[in-house]
């Protein structure tokens, strides 16, 4: 909408960019990608000494389009438009914001739907398993190309927060602040179990063709839909679903059958269908696996304190009261390890009924605290010109 895209606190019309990285990248799995592309968006202006750059890391189903609109006709802004823009917590008057689509994604960066240079066909299931560590490594190459030696901050929610954490541990000299929102230092068995249901839904769809659905002109749409439906339940909370749908029926009567009758069923189906039309099944498998594998303490003898002792940056850790996917206790564990490792950290648990999704939902305290922290970050480099 033209009017909205010109709102004073919107970054306005934005255009994705793409960079080709011809050097091979060795992945944590031991595999090597001979070359890759990263698609990304930027907002704001990089200052003369490149000290005001902020990296936004996206979550499971996210992408590079974090803020603004792609055209005047665009109905919806980027996924984190609530927090990125002039005067918003991540103030584009002060920061140069970079948001890439992660490797293995399906929105333009090299992923399973891309052409495998060895075969000339889509990678499909041959695309190597990617980890958070690999994403961070590829993002570091992007930083090199953009002339950014050190990020003022690396920021992310959920899986994005895990990337911020990994940056802090593995590139301590290249990051001044990490903002870790609604994340966890490792998934629980329950988290992994939900991911596994999602993956099984996809791989057991007859249209999956062992991952070579593109070559078979098929899409495992039912599987993707189910995966999204189960995922979506874990992003919301009992309270938010109750408020949004309650036990409302679509047409006020029981039909004593198994078609969609409750509003919540209709909503989940709508979300599932929409997602299955726009997301790649192999990418979904990869992203959920990256979540499962994430465990920065593992290479430090399962000692999270030792992992955090590698970091040099300051941290802001935020959790949400009704988040049961990555509940506040997980953030608290992370904070305890940071304190133990003598890192600078501030932590708050934001009251919200929105479950895990709360990190994307406008909330007065959340935005105000986030803004206060980012203003502090901005003071270190002086406002960008």
């Amino acid at each position, binding site marked *: 909408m033209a009017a909205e895209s010109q709102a004073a606190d919107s970054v306005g019309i934005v255009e994705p960019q793409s960079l080709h990285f011809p050097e091979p990248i060795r992945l944590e799995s031991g595999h090597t990608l001979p070359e890759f592309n990263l698609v990304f968006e930027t907002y704001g202006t990089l200052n003369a000494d490149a000290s005001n750059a902020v990296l936004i890391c996206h979550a499971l189903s996210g992408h590079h389009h974090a803020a603004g609109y792609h055209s005047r006709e665009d109905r919806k802004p980027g996924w984190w438009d609530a927090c990125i823009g002039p005067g918003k917590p991540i103030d584009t008057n002060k920061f140069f914001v970079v948001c890439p689509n992660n490797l293995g994604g399906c929105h333009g960066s090299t992923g399973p739907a891309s052409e495998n240079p060895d075969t000339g066909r889509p990678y499909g299931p041959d695309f190597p398993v990617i980890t958070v560590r690999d994403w961070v490594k590829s993002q570091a190459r992007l930083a090199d190309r953009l002339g950014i030696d050190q990020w003022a901050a690396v920021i992310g929610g959920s899986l994005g927060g895990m990337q911020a954490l990994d940056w802090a541990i593995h590139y301590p000299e290249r990051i001044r602040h990490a903002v870790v929102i609604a994340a966890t230092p490792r998934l629980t068995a329950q988290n992994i179990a939900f991911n596994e249901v999602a993956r099984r839904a996809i791989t057991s769809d007859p249209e999956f063709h062992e991952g070579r659905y593109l070559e078979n002109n098929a899409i495992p749409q039912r599987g993707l839909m189910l995966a999204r439906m189960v995922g979506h339940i874990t992003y919301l909370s009992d309270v938010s679903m109750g408020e949004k749908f309650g036990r409302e029926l679509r047409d006020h009567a029981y039909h004593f059958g198994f078609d969609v009758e409750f509003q919540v069923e209709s909503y989940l189906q709508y979300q599932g269908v929409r997602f299955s039309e726009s997301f790649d099944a192999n990418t979904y498998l990869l992203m959920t696996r990256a979540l499962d594998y994430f465990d920065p303490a593992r290479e430090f003898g399962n000692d999270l304190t030792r992992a955090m002792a590698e970091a040099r940056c300051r941290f*802001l850790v935020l959790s949400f009261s009704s988040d049961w996917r990555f509940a506040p206790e997980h953030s*608290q*564990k992370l*904070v*305890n390890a940071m*304190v*133990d490792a*003598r890192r*600078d*950290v*501030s*932590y*708050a*648990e934001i009251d919200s009924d929105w479950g895990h999704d709360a990190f994307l939902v406008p909330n007065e*305290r959340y935005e*105000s*605290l986030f803004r*206060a*922290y980012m*203003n*502090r970050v901005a003071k270190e480099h002086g406002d960008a010109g």
Partner: protein
Amino acid sequence: MRADLKLIEPWVAPGSRVLDLGCGDGTLMDYLQREKSVVGYGLEINPDYIEECVRKGVNVIEQDLDEDRLHSFRDQTFDTVIMTQALQAVRRPDRALTEMLRLGREGIVTFPNFGYWRLRLHQLWNGRMPMSSTLPHTWYNTPNIHLCTVRDFEALCQEHRIRIKDRTVVDNAHRSRWYNRLWPNFLGQIAVYRVTR
């Protein structure tokens, strides 16, 4: 400079690790960070205070002091654990005190002395719960649910084998007058203790 900061400051070693339980808007930690280069954290439950700490650049961790989760910090993580004007507001001051000395080598505690003569007189004279400028709340809405006197506090320390390294009693403006020291439990409005195991 706030008078209570001046009282506490000499007891905090430069560069030491400090935890401030109930840190409020972070004034004390901000001061100790700048003047003593301490590495520290404040614990706070009030969202406005938390934001104010963040604005000041003070590390602040959201935490209800009444919850047992203080226990998740490791033993002896800190050199000094400070609790100013909060002991009387927690559900179990005895546990808070022992927890302080589990987390740190030394504790600094300040609290309003309920043995102050005006408070005694107030109750004696009016037959009602004392109120004063230090304790302005009515009995039913006060956050101060565990008020104690200087002698009560020292008895508690003795019971838990906690050693009192230093004690000062001051007036409301945190000034130490000769008559405060003359009869602390009767003439001191605010008690300031430095304790250890």
